[in-house]
């Protein structure tokens, strides 16, 4: 892959950090990230068969190891630059290569943080939703995480497809756990997801025909000068459509609302924040690291089409969210809109816009997992699923709804929350390119977001007529147990912390995750 931006800083850091990392251990890091998931995947069903209660501790231990190695990888990349690991010592381009640059290290850390927090929450929630599903839940969660992590780490186009399918298998199964309509919704997603993955695979096929290689760096180097080759162009279009389907890019988002609504909250809380984001990651990987950005994104209408479709998705998703009565369905449509902001950044494709997109991958993951976890807590504690039944719950579940409120304000984009800053960079990028319509739409869409979130916030905290029924039927306090409330609060605090320290994150990680040659003004 490309040389990370700012290699002189890396060298500088390298002198200080070299002693901290054993050189051999470090070259194994990409694999060490995957191993805890593989081991966990083997152990969870086995131990779970023995004693159902062993499933959670086993999962948690493997996820903590996963988190540990993910963060170590991130720091190693920050200190030394890109890490590479050849599977079975077959050198690329023949062998499969795990290749971790700043972008993938960042992405895998996002996955790990969300996974750990959701697993802690799930330890109580899944047991209460349906104890029978405990072992399958944790096992399929690990399958999905393994797939997603593999997609992020691999440097091989076909291997990515394999992990794509692994993650999808886990995802379908997870989604099918839940409401009785969940299997139907999951089946619909299966059809759409398979279609998306197949389109991606066809794109890989075209590239293979042209280049004879599947290694991303190798392919990138070969197609650099083949911009007029129709096969390369077709492969790009196939990939964009396939990945667009997977990330629910408008107008290919129709599978998403049902899937998120009917799945159990614990499933949605792990799927919604990271599944579509990893597809967005792959799209960034393809458009900015494999295909030549200047010729393909700028030279063709591909960038503009992605940008405007995504902007349409923001508007349509937000309006649909306003129309919903069911809390989870509202959040599902909100996901369509929010993931579309990432699409806007990718389509615009300038350094600032990409910073906005990447920052929003993290920010939205934090906010949306928090919000879905809250819907789960509310459903378990009070049975409420409709927004109108949330009336007055702010007093009964104060900590849970503190997290909810912070995340909701982040979604609206009130400074200094993290959501404000993702939009801030998108807007700066748009202004720099003179895309005034886009800039105005990005800002105006936050008003739509405000409409559907303030409606809920108001209901939670203010006195409304329906509250009388709630008051009678519920005890004075209905706060979720610690292991459910704490992840919500941590995520809620993350909304503020990531907002206040966004500049640090951008300069230390995200700006260095940009493709070579892209620089953020001001850094």
């Amino acid at each position, binding site marked *: 892959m490309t040389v990370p931006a700012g290699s002189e800083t890396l060298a500088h850091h390298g002198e200080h950090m070299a002693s901290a990392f054993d050189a051999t251990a470090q070259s194994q890091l990409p694999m060490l990230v995957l191993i805890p998931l593989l081991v966990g995947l083997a152990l969870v069903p086995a131990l779970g068969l023995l004693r159902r209660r062993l499933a959670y501790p086993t999962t948690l231990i493997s996820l903590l190891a996963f988190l540990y190695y993910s963060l170590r990888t991130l720091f190693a990349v920050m200190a030394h630059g890109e890490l590479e690991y050849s599977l079975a010592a077959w050198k690329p381009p023949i062998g499969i290569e795990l290749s971790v640059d700043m972008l993938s290290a960042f992405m895998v850390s996002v996955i790990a943080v969300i996974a750990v927090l959701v697993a802690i929450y799930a330890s109580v929630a899944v047991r209460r939703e349906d104890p029978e599903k405990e072992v399958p839940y944790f096992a399929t969660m690990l399958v999905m995480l393994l797939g997603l992590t593999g997609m992020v780490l691999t440097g091989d186009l076909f291997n990515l497809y394999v992990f794509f399918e692994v993650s999808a298998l886990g995802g379908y199964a997870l989604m099918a756990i839940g409401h009785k309509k969940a299997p139907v919704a999951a089946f619909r997603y299966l059809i759409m997801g398979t279609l998306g993955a197949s389109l991606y695979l066809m794109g890989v096929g075209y590239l293979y025909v042209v280049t004879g290689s599947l290694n991303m760096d190798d392919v990138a180097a070969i197609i650099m000068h083949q911009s007029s080759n129709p096969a390369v162009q077709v492969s790009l279009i196939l990939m964009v459509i396939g990945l667009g389907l997977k990330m629910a890019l408008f107008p290919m988002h129709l599978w998403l609302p049902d899937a998120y609504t009917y799945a159990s909250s614990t499933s949605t809380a792990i799927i919604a924040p990271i599944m579509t984001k990893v597809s967005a990651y792959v799209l960034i990987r393809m458009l900015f690291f494999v295909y030549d950005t200047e010729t393909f994104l700028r030279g063709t209408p591909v960038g503009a089409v992605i940008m405007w479709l995504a902007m349409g998705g923001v508007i349509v998703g937000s309006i649909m969210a306003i129309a919903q009565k069911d809390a989870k369905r509202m959040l599902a449509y909100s996901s369509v809109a929010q993931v579309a902001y990432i699409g806007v950044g990718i389509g615009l494709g300038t350094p600032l816009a990409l910073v906005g997109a990447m920052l929003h991958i993290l920010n939205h993951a934090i906010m949306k997992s928090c919000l879905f976890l809250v819907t789960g807590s509310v459903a378990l504690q009070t049975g409420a699923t409709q927004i109108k039944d949330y009336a007055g719950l702010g007093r009964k579940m104060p900590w849970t709804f503190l997290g909810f409120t912070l995340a909701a*304000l982040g979604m609206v984009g*009130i*400074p*200094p929350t993290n959501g*404000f*800053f993702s939009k*801030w960079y998108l*807007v*700066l990028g748009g*202004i*720099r390119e003179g895309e005034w319509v886009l*800039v*105005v739409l990005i*800002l*105006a869409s*936050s*008003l739509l977001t*405000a409409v559907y979130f*303030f409606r809920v916030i*108001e209901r939670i*905290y*203010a*006195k409304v007529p329906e509250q009388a029924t709630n008051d009678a039927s519920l005890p004075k306090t209905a706060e979720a147990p610690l292991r459910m409330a704490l992840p919500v609060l941590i995520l809620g605090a993350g909304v503020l912390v990531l907002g*206040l*320290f*966004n*500049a*640090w994150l*951008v*300069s230390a990680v995200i*700006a260095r995750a940009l493709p070579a040659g892209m620089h*953020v*003004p*001001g*850094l």
Partner: protein
Amino acid sequence: MDPAQTFESTRPLWAVLVSLLAIPLIVASDRRPNLRETWTLLAAFIKFALVASMLPWVLQGREAVCSIWQISPGIQLALRVDTMGYIFALVASSLWVLTSLYSIGYVRGTNEHKQTRYFASFAMCLSATIGIAFAANLLTFVIFFEILTLATYPLVMHKETPVAMAAGHKYLSYTLPAGLCLVLATAWCVSTVGNVDFIPGGFLTSGVASAATLRWMFLLFILGVGVKAGIMPLHSWLPAAMAAPTPVSALLHAVAVVKAGVFGVLRVTGFVFGPDLLREIGLWTVLAWAAGITFTVASLLAMRQDNLKRRLAYSTVGHLSYIVLGAALFTMTSWTGSLLHLMFHATMKITLFFCAGAIYVRTHKENISDMHGIGRQMPFTMAAFAVGSLGLAGVPGINGFISKWHLAQGSLQADQGVFLGLLLLSGLLNAAYFFPIVYVAFFRTNKEYPAYGEASPLMVVPLSVTAIMSLVLGVAPNLGAHAWDLARAAAAAVMGGSP
């Protein structure tokens, strides 16, 4: 004036944070009202003491700066105590002390629900207000400005009646879009010039962009801050927001929130664009006329209100535009007048709102037509009310006269005699809508009244103090806080003259 001496200090940061830190304590003391109110009072006193302790620095022309950390590449989250910011911080923090005392009397007198939320939101608002006052650059300003928007919302809808909820919605539907205009204008500035630190006299120059671009930018800025400043036609959230409890109307809708809007206008005109550039792109006349029309129409509308608080709200809309007018005229005297009015209007209008609240707590009457003879039963309250209304009408001897005098002189110096005419007309209109209230209160009687008597000392003392402040500042504007010197120095910084 020489460039101000700057030095590092964390004191401005503490002045911002102290009320924020009080919030967890306030919330934790939910079930022990006395302890909870202790935290509020403690925070208010410490905040005021911190702000007051910075007065010598400001008078010496030394500016404390505090860079917290980078908030966007190349832009610091930073505070800076310049004279103009200090004026606003001083007004807000000193009046918060009085409002806190008054609030306690009020919410206990009316037995308000959810008092914890009320005091916590109040503390949040004050942190945001001081942050706005001391913000050293545009982005920091925007962040605190938006926090203020949000923190005020629970207070506007506090009563949770349908009217209050509707007022809350109206408030958000005005202030959120305005915030977006402000964000857009700020982002545009950042894209154009990179460094958005406030500089007296403006950091934009005609060289950085075309005149058309700069005009659009100015328009966006004014839309952004103009909603809180109540410039017509962006004002109508303010009368609606009178659904809030009276201390909220008193401190936020006469001092902190609306003055944050006006302060924003001053920052934008004086520290972003500056007099030279605004004369060059020719938009100051638009702003001046908007202000002139606003205070004339607002005075006319005020006359039609029977609800006392709504009448006061329209009066506030009018008086805010006096300040905007002074800023737009861009003379040394008019700016001095604006800054004086920023301080003096606060003491007078807060007195009037305090009085309205005291009457409401004792009698549950909100309409002026029901207040015949109330002056005989609540003599201190209505005497204070008389002081405030005379001052706002511009009667000499009360501080309102001094600020208006500067504004009037400023319009002559700017060769804009027409605004002098409008100011005089508005003075008459002020008299026309205020004097009848005082008249019926003292010279009419209502036989159906039971004996009401004064409200609790927690309410009467603050309102007497603000009335006395208005009187004292009316004869000795430089007493105590050196209000007049401060206003001159801040105006001189912007206009580039010597104070």
